[in-house]
């Protein structure tokens, strides 16, 4: 709609682009991470068994934010770096973009350490974290070095492999108490809003659209896929919440750290029992897109701001992730990192409407001059 803005956008060669439908997988797989394994606890603390409403509200809010992100990118000339540059100028804009880079890195880091903690708690209490993290990061480097298309592929595979895990929800439902779910809302609005806030924390991830937007072919066509993605995530979260509500009693759930993994324990087949091991192993597929896309997004920002080679940035960031990940230990510390990244994610989501307003204003001003 505006010639000035469209003239100097970021152009990515055709063969690195992905078709709009993949936005569905990108958004969904980035949203679902380690959070889903134990987020019910934080909801129940605030709103009890009425928390399912909070999940729906959070989903709705995210649809609005997604709409805003698309508005923001529509004629923003590419990604967040470009938008920042146009609104705030080279230096302030660059600085803000670097904050995003830090945020993305923190997200990747959070997922990494939480997954390692899950393994330590559930499978190998004596895990050699430094070797395991090293190999895991090597794997991440291998995937990220393949570029955005490979990461998209990993997202797709993760969604496909995640599907059979969903079927396991049948077992807790069968063993559970369906009368726990009853559409009477006994909690106050502030309680539910607090739970909404908590559930948004596990929904973050769609802001990566800000950085991979230029990699989408016909980006405007991807809108509906993105919304489908958010909707699908909301549904999966809703199902998870309902299943854990059926399976656990309210007070019990407040004490269960990893609700979903505990529920896997009861899955039994004639040839295999104790499904949590398989579940955790399969969860690697679900968290890898998080780490890969996080790292890719984080390293792409310096590339765009400073024009450095992304290849070296990925190595640098891997090393930067490695040492803290090895050193961090213990539930309280990991919990607080999770909280920080959640809070930061919330601010980022709040920052998007602000950015949209600023952008509209600057666009108007520029048009006039």
């Amino acid at each position, binding site marked *: 709609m505006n010639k000035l803005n469209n003239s100097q956008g970021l152009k990515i060669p055709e063969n690195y682009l992905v078709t709009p439908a993949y936005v569905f997988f990108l958004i969904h797989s980035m949203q679902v991470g380690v959070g889903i394994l134990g987020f019910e606890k934080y909801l129940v603390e605030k709103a009890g*068994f009425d928390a399912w409403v909070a999940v729906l509200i959070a989903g709705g809010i995210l649809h609005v934010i997604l709409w805003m992100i698309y508005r923001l990118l529509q004629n923003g000339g590419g990604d967040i770096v470009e938008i920042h540059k146009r609104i705030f100028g080279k230096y302030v804009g660059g600085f803000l973009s670097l904050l995003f880079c830090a945020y993305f890195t923190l997200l990747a880091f959070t997922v990494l350490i939480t997954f390692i903690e899950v393994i330590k708690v*559930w499978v190998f209490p004596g895990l*050699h974290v430094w*070797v395991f993290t090293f190999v895991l990061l090597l794997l991440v480097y291998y995937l990220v070095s393949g570029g955005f298309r490979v990461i998209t592929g990993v997202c797709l595979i993760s969604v496909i492999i995640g599907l059979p895990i969903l079927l396991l929800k049948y077992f807790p439902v069968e063993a559970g108490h369906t009368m*726990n779910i009853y559409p009477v809302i006994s909690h106050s609005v502030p309680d539910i809003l607090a739970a909404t806030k908590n559930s948004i924390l596990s929904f973050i991830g769609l802001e990566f659209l800000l950085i991979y937007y230029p990699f989408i072919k016909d980006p405007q066509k991807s809108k509906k896929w993105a919304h489908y993605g958010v909707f699908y995530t909301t549904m999966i979260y809703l199902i998870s919440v309902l299943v854990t509500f059926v399976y*656990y009693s309210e007070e019990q759930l407040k004490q269960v750290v990893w609700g979903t993994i505990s529920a896997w324990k*009861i899955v039994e087949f004639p040839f295999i029992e104790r499904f949590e091991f398989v579940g955790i192993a399969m969860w690697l597929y679900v968290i890898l897109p998080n780490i890969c896309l996080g790292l890719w997004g984080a390293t792409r920002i310096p590339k765009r701001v400073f024009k450095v080679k992304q290849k070296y940035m990925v190595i640098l960031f891997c090393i930067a992730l490695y040492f803290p990940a090895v050193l961090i230990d213990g539930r309280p510390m990991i919990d607080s990192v999770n909280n920080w990244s959640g809070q930061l994610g919330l601010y980022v989501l709040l920052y998007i409407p602000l950015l949209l307003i600023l952008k509209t204003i600057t666009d108007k001003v520029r048009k006039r001059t």
Partner: protein
Amino acid sequence: MKKQWLFLMMVSVVLLNGCMPSRSVEENAIVQIVGYDVGEEERIQGTVSIPQYGKSEDKQAASELYLTVEADSTKDVEVEIQKQSSRPISIGKLAVTLYSKELAENDLADFIDVLSRDPRLSRNMFLGVVEGSSKDLIEGGYTQDETTSKHLQGLIENNTLYNFPSTSLHDFLYAYYAQGMDSFLPLLKKHETFVELSGVGFFKRGVLVAEIPDSAIFTFKMLKENFIKGMQEIPFEGGVIMMENIGSNVDYSLSGPTDNPQFDIKVKLKAEVNEMSGIKRDASPELAKEMEEKFAEFFNKEGKELISLFKEKGVDPLGLGNFAKTRRGDFDLTQWRDNYSELEVNVKVDVEITEYGIFS
């Protein structure tokens, strides 16, 4: 070239250091039953059973190894047993945990905390309370199955399909932690060559406070959950009728104000009668009608008795409070507890006899 060397070095470092300390399955002492008794001087006595699997030819666990130790806590039991075992103890496949009645009447809270915390344990594990010493029960040696663990597991699992309400570690923990719900466990009793499921024990938090005999289990299960099997013996005109359940449906409903609620428990039972001993009448629709009424009366009475027992002991294994909590937004737990003994609960059982077997 340098790159390849670096890669090789990395691989070898990972291989040498990455491996977890591991033991293959057969090198572990796989504990299948743990039993706890009251020990001397405030300590607890733990007994474990470890199956000894036979060599190549006979594929079954031929024997069991029993180890008994005195310890201060559950974890300490594991430590003490380790001292007596030539192989590392693995509690991942623990199938049955038993507590002696004495211990249960004292308090099980500490044990339960460990049970809910340990990630190695299966949530499908069975818990049970032993009348007498759990050590004796574990070491009993039963002829039906090769090992005690198999015997106990089979016993409880099989019975939950019939008269016994479903029970497992998860069910226990669910009720234990839930507000307005109390847990129950099967009572086990050792006989010469077998173990008998002698009744149900009801807990208030971690303390065993009440129990019902074998004969009332059917009624309890009927009030607690829907099920499709099970049998109950009912006296009828001087004789006895075996009633076979082929589908029982229970429905709770709540009415009245929150501070003085009223519960209605409606049970619809479809039954089959195959055996009438001591009754000198021919099967006829009239007889069926009479039986239905008689049965309903029987169950109503039994149900009332159960409920009054629960009220008297202040336990709520049916989870009425929990139910009220999900239905009423302004549910208050302390108020509920105070009012529980005066709570009005109506039991209404409706019996329908549909079949008389293949001979009429």
